[in-house]
């Protein structure tokens, strides 16, 4: 009886699975993935803790002001109590995933493609009985799997900290929202992994590919949202232009109707970036954006499905490109 017959069908190693398992083992062995995950975890934890400390300061200020008003025999209704939604404390952490998570995905993509080139093992691997797309699919599966694992660790750790730090604990609905954010974060970071992976696999010099991937990251993650944010008239004057002019919200909307074209261009620049879609989706799901705070998850997902489609279509499009581009082992020898 052959060995293959002894292995149940579901465990039969396929080339894709073998390549993926090998890549994951390699990545865990050299501790690179653990180091970058720890870095992202640290950045996210710093964001969570500083946000919580700032909120505690706001609460203390409110309590002191309220006590003063009550001591003076006045009503405490004159001052607005700080709102507390525990998931809102994840804002900084989400922004760190948005920026540093995407940068880490680029590094994982680069290493995934460059490792075989550096060790001159690519040509050897391609002599094995497998199709070239299976090699690429295995590598991509491993990279996205590592990202998913790293993000699960980071978000899981943050959830635990938030549960014990918030004082009121997290419910099933909160955990579901964090799980949804995790899934979208995996798809979002996968986009950057795939950009870097494709470039590093096909450009002559892998180190040049890494720098080009960083240029893409700069443009999509930092520059496009920054331009959109900077062009927001309310961000031009400290405290906001309308606040300085003492103009109420309904009147602001009326005035801004005359700037529809400007706002369309501004919105277009922001929306050209997958990062902005990720931010809008996660901020809505977690209630970070005030209009979505306390809203059930279902209607939020319906309203945000455009952002969700954008993120997943970007990732799927990049997967298609990665699988479709022909591999040239001669060109991909160590540069």
């Amino acid at each position, binding site marked *: 009886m052959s060995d293959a017959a002894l292995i149940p069908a579901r465990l039969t190693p396929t080339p894709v699975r073998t390549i993926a398992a090998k890549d994951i083992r390699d990545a865990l062995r050299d501790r690179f993935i653990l180091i970058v995950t720890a*870095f992202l975890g*640290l*950045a996210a934890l*710093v*964001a969570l803790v*500083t*946000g919580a*400390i*700032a909120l*505690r*300061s*706001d609460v203390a*200020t409110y309590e002191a002001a309220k006590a003063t008003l009550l001591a003076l025999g006045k009503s405490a209704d004159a001052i607005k109590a700080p709102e507390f939604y525990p998931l809102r404390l994840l*804002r*900084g952490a989400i*922004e*760190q995933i*948005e*920026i*540093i998570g995407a*940068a880490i995905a680029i*590094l994982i993509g680069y*290493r995934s493609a*460059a490792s075989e080139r550096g060790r001159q093992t690519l040509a050897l691997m391609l002599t094995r009985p497998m199709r070239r797309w299976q090699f690429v699919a295995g590598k991509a599966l491993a990279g996205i799997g590592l990202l998913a694992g790293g993000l699960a660790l980071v978000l899981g750790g943050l959830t635990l900290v938030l549960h014990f730090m918030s004082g009121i604990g997290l419910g099933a609905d909160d955990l579901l929202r964090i799980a949804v954010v995790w899934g979208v974060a995996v798809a979002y970071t996968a986009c950057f992994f795939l950009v870097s992976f494709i470039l590093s696999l096909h450009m002559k010099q892998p*180190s*040049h590919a*890494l*720098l*080009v991937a*960083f*240029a893409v990251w*700069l*443009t999509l993650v*930092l*520059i496009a*949202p*920054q*331009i959109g*944010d*900077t*062009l927001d*008239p309310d*961000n*031009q*004057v*400290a405290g906001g*232009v*309308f606040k*300085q*002019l*003492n*103009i109420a919200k309904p*009147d602001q909307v*009326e*005035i*801004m109707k*005359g*700037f529809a074209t*400007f706002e369309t261009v501004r919105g277009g620049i922001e929306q050209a970036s997958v990062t902005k879609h990720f*931010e809008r989706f996660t901020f809505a799901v977690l209630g970070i954006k005030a209009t979505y705070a306390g809203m059930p998850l279902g209607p939020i997902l319906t309203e945000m499905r455009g952002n969700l489609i954008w993120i997943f279509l970007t990732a799927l499009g990049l997967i298609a490109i990665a699988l479709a581009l022909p591999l040239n082992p001669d060109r991909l020898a160590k540069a």
Partner: protein
Amino acid sequence: MQAAPSPGWLIARQSASFVLRERTVALLSGMFVVLVLISAWLGWSATSTVNRIYLDAAAFLQKSGQPVPSNPVLDISPLSLLRNMSVYVALIGALSAIVIGNRLVGLDRKAGVLPLIGIRPLGRNAYAAGKIAALAGLILALGAVAGAVAVATFLVLPAITLTGLQWTQLAGFMAVTTLYMAIFGLIGLAAGAGARSETVGLLLPVTLWLTLTFILPQLTANLNPTAAINPISALAIPPDTSFFHWAAVVLGPVSLADAYKFASAGLLDYLPQGIASPSFIPPVMTLILATAVAAAFAWRALTRLSMTEGEYNV
């Protein structure tokens, strides 16, 4: 008879011309120049939009019989048109400088020419001085391009006239900008010379840049990463708690992105009243000290570079 050029000068000239041939350096430097141009346009566009909003709002307030406040644009110095440049310098300028620094020594290591240079009649000090001089020349060139765009913006835009003091402030901003890029260039040089592998030599300074730009401002002023890249939102007052007070005391002096941000806001006249740098060391002094420390690291790494080994070890 003309005197032969010094070894340091030869190294500097050869390294700079070698790096300029690199397509990635050209790509990032090109991006930096384009973004500097965009920053000038953004400043003009955003300010003129606020002015138009004010005119519409003033008409609206007048019609509804409410008092009309003063135009916030009139309170803004013309220099603040360039406020976005400080963000792009902190992002792409710093990253370009890291890559230039890294490539200056990385190309020699990768090409395996160090043993060849080592047998020439020049000391390690001349090699180190040549590399640092090449970096200084390239960073100065980037700074000069940014400066030329800034000057051209103020000369071309109508109805904007700078006073003598404002021109001096602009020169100061360009000097601080060049200094900030030089710090990251020197860190890139040090990491490129000291790291065992090419990738680590690039990743170490990039990690440091990420930490300085996105993590330290959160600790010193509770500033979220996306706020840190908006020139106005980045100038927030830290929460009044003992944690942020001590974080500013301990981390303020090393929070270089904060120092550059506050130095730029001060020089370009967009620092809101009552807001100051979280550090007890003045921002410009922080940047000067950081340049000296980064230069010392670069010098140490370059003078300890093994001239007997050709390539990277791994």
